[in-house]
């Protein structure tokens, strides 16, 4: 067995997330790859919470399709997942003595009753240990890192005293022993361990990855306003930025956040803000100012379900239109989107580098499921990233007398050296009005035309600055899949499967979504008979932009239920389109 998905469902607050994180870490220690998927209720208390972890001996590309094993902590969880308990799956459920009132029998599904509440309450006298009972049972039954798990319990609970360690270990054993003694294993799922030790591996979430990337890129200023599912980016940096002499402030709203960022960057900081859709909507006017005044800045949008307040804790990729086209006027900007957790580190660094190099706002789109999900990834080496800083004005070095510093000088690249307050001879007025080279207001047709050209032309080479989109598969194909963001991983997996089944399918994996790497996209499209664009939004936003920008005749495949794609969905669509 090289790949296994276990999902745990229950009431928010029952320790599902923390238990899941432990088994994931234990598995990673024993050399397995892991990728988790979490779903929280939109309310603070109560409501269905879900934790899923995928284990594999090989690289994991996505959340996968459904699960092999489902562990139900309560009736609601069981009900919500009932339709996915298809023949071949396994159910472990809290029975008897828990919230689930009746024994469960489902045709073709292996059902293991595990009285986890009862064991925790009666045998261990600690209801909170229910999650550990479940963990012990799952680890034992599916042969996942049971020993690593116990080691981890000792480390994690160590400082809380031996008694706490003991009761947790006992709970794990109780779960394991119950399974050993009461059920004959009839399902085929057994993970086992691997030779490699997992030493060079870290486990990190998408939101943390953005934070780490920012630190690597030299970010020293963040202003934020809390919003689900982006708050963890700020939470992470709130602890680390001040240690590196940086500044993190919580502003009165998102408008103030971006205004803080623009002020800080104007004064020389490498500044960013992190938000979700509603916040980005509020920032549109200031985004235009950043474009007009050519101020470097990074805006991270951890997308959630929209429109409006929408589905705050659900997954969606529906802010692309706004990211590329939001705000009045022709406002230049760059939009990147991350595929997975490693990518989130990498692209955050690239986002800062582009912001600095091109003196432009850069948006980085991730999404709720990527933000919350953790992955085991190769340990990054902070020194291996190249970091770019803005082209600075040097008195007299601008080709002009110091008194004639031209902040918006027309240059071949479109980028003009930027002075910082304090630079003698570099004074100018950063402005949202159209302006001449010297930054004085100017509304002549000539200045508006050439400054518009400057703002857009300087971005022309961004398409070369960002690595070209990866092509998966080669030769001519019957179908090419182009997608973006965290759907890319799912596409990779589906396309691997399709190709393994002999289908002539390829995929292109762009990370730069605005401006588009048109050359590569057209080249790719020219080798495919059809182009399919799966994405998680109603309107087929990327498909429309792709068509609009490149003329590529894209078949849009949008889903919009607040959940990511499964590889199976995409594979089936591929087959349907090829029929």
């Amino acid at each position, binding site marked *: 067995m090289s790949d296994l998905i276990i999902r745990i469902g229950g009431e928010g607050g029952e320790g599902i997330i923390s238990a899941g994180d432990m088994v994931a870490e234990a598995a990673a220690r024993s050399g397995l790859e892991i990728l988790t998927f979490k779903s929280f209720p939109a309310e603070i208390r109560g409501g269905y919470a879900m934790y899923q972890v995928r284990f594999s001996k090989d690289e994991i590309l996505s959340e996968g399709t459904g699960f092999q094993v489902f562990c139900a902590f309560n009736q609601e969880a069981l009900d919500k997942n009932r339709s996915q308990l298809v023949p071949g799956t396994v159910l472990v459920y809290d029975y008897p003595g828990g919230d689930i009132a009746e024994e469960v029998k489902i045709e073709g599904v292996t059902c293991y009753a595990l009285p986890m509440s009862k064991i925790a309450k009666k045998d261990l006298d600690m209801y909170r240990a229910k999650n550990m009972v479940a963990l012990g049972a799952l680890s034992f039954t599916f042969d996942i890192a049971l020993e690593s798990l116990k080691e981890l319990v000792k480390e994690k609970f160590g400082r809380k005293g031996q008694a706490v360690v003991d009761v947790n270990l006992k709970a794990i054993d109780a779960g394991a022993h119950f399974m050993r003694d009461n059920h004959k294993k009839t399902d085929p799922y057994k993970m086992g361990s691997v030779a490699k030790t997992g030493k060079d*591996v*870290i486990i990190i979430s998408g939101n943390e990855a953005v934070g780490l990337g920012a630190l690597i890129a030299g970010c020293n200023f963040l202003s934020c306003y809390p919003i689900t599912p982006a708050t963890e980016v700020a939470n992470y940096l709130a*602890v680390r930025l*001040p240690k*590196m002499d940086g500044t993190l402030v919580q502003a009165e709203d998102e408008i103030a956040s971006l205004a803080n960022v623009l002020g800080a960057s104007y004064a020389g*900081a490498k500044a960013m803000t992190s938000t979700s859709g509603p916040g980005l909507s509020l920032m549109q006017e200031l985004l235009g100012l950043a474009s007009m005044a050519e101020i470097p800045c990074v805006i991270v949008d951890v997308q959630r379900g929209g429109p409006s307040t929408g589905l705050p804790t659900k997954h969606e990729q529906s802010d692309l239109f706004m990211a590329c086209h939001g705000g009045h006027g022709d406002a230049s900007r760059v939009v990147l989107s991350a595929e997975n957790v490693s990518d989130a580190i990498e692209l955050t660094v690239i986002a800062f580098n582009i912001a600095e190099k091109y003196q432009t706002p850069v948006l980085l789109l991730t999404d709720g499921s990527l933000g919350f999900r953790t992955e085991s990834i190769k340990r990054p080496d902070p020194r291996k990233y190249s970091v770019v800083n803005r082209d600075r004005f040097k008195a007299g070095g601008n080709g002009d007398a110091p008194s004639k510093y031209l902040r918006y000088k027309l240059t071949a690249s479109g980028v003009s050296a930027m002075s910082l307050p*304090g630079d003698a001879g570099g004074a100018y007025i*950063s402005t949202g009005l159209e302006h001449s080279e010297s930054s*004085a207001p100017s509304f002549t047709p000539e200045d508006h035309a050439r400054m518009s050209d400057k703002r857009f032309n300087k971005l022309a080479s961004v398409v070369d600055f960002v690595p070209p989109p990866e092509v998966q598969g080669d030769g001519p194909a019957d179908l090419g899949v182009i997608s973006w963001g965290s759907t890319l991983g799912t596409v990779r997996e589906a396309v691997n499967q399709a190709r393994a089944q002999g289908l002539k399918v390829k995929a292109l994996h762009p990370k730069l979504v605005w401006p588009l790497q048109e050359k590569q996209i057209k080249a790719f499209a020219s080798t495919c008979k059809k182009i399919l664009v799966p994405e998680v939004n109603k309107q087929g936003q990327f498909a429309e932009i792709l068509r609009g920008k490149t003329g590529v005749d894209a078949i849009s495949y949008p889903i919009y239920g607040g959940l990511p794609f499964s590889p199976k969905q995409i594979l089936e669509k591929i087959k349907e389109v090829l029929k």
Partner: protein
Amino acid sequence: MTATAEVLKPKDYKSDIRPVWCAGCGDYGVLNAVQNAFAALKLSLYDTVCVSGIGCSSRLPYFLKTYGFHSLHGRSLPVAVGIKLARPELEVVVFGGDGDLFSIGGGHFPHVARKNSDVTCIMMDNHIYGLTKGQVSPTSTPGMVATTTPFGAPDTGSVNPLAYALTYGASFVAQSFSGNPKALSEIVQQAIMHEGFSYVNVISPCLTFNKIDTFDFYKDAFVDLPADHDKSNLVAALDKAFNPPAGKVYNGVFYETQRPTLVENLKKVNQKAKADKNRDLNEFVEEFAI
């Protein structure tokens, strides 16, 4: 506050962009007083940043030779805070109109004040929207007739900028008149010297669109705050702000106190943070090790 080495005269702070204000606009007086104050304080041309929003008054930074940031309508304060946080050694002065700072920008003001961000805010209060050709502003007299209120504005009360600033926790609050550049320059100097958020309400008439709050009206209306006014008493200051003598307008400093600034507090945060475990990038990566 960074002082300059060379000796600069008021006119040395003036840029070569010609002011676009109507002849007779109150804002000319403010510009003069500011140049004067900058010269008196020997402010460096390069370590001073003048920030503004949008409005006739918000054009002021263009007419100075210092660094400037002409931001968006209502956003000058949070931009200025960003500048100050990134570069605490800079002198940051905000200019704006009554609409800019108290209507569209009114949501930022309380937080900049209560956090005691060390910027100086100089409002050119003409009780009208000048640049958009005459609509009531939050400081307009209730009932004023203007373009969007041809039958009189339905506002029951208007914004009292001094009382607002005081209630918000501004640590320096004063008022002056563009028609008295000398008094104004002195107050601007005090405001800039003050450590913490300082607010100066400058009555600066718009002769084109406001026929109520005119130079003529204010010429004789200004009186100095009583000599015995206790500048350290918040409630007394509020009383003065709410209850000036009938028909009169106070010139002077209503309130002044010393509170830790945002920059100071953030320094302490950084000290605490650095005393904590894990201090550099490699350690941050190590936190995620399994």
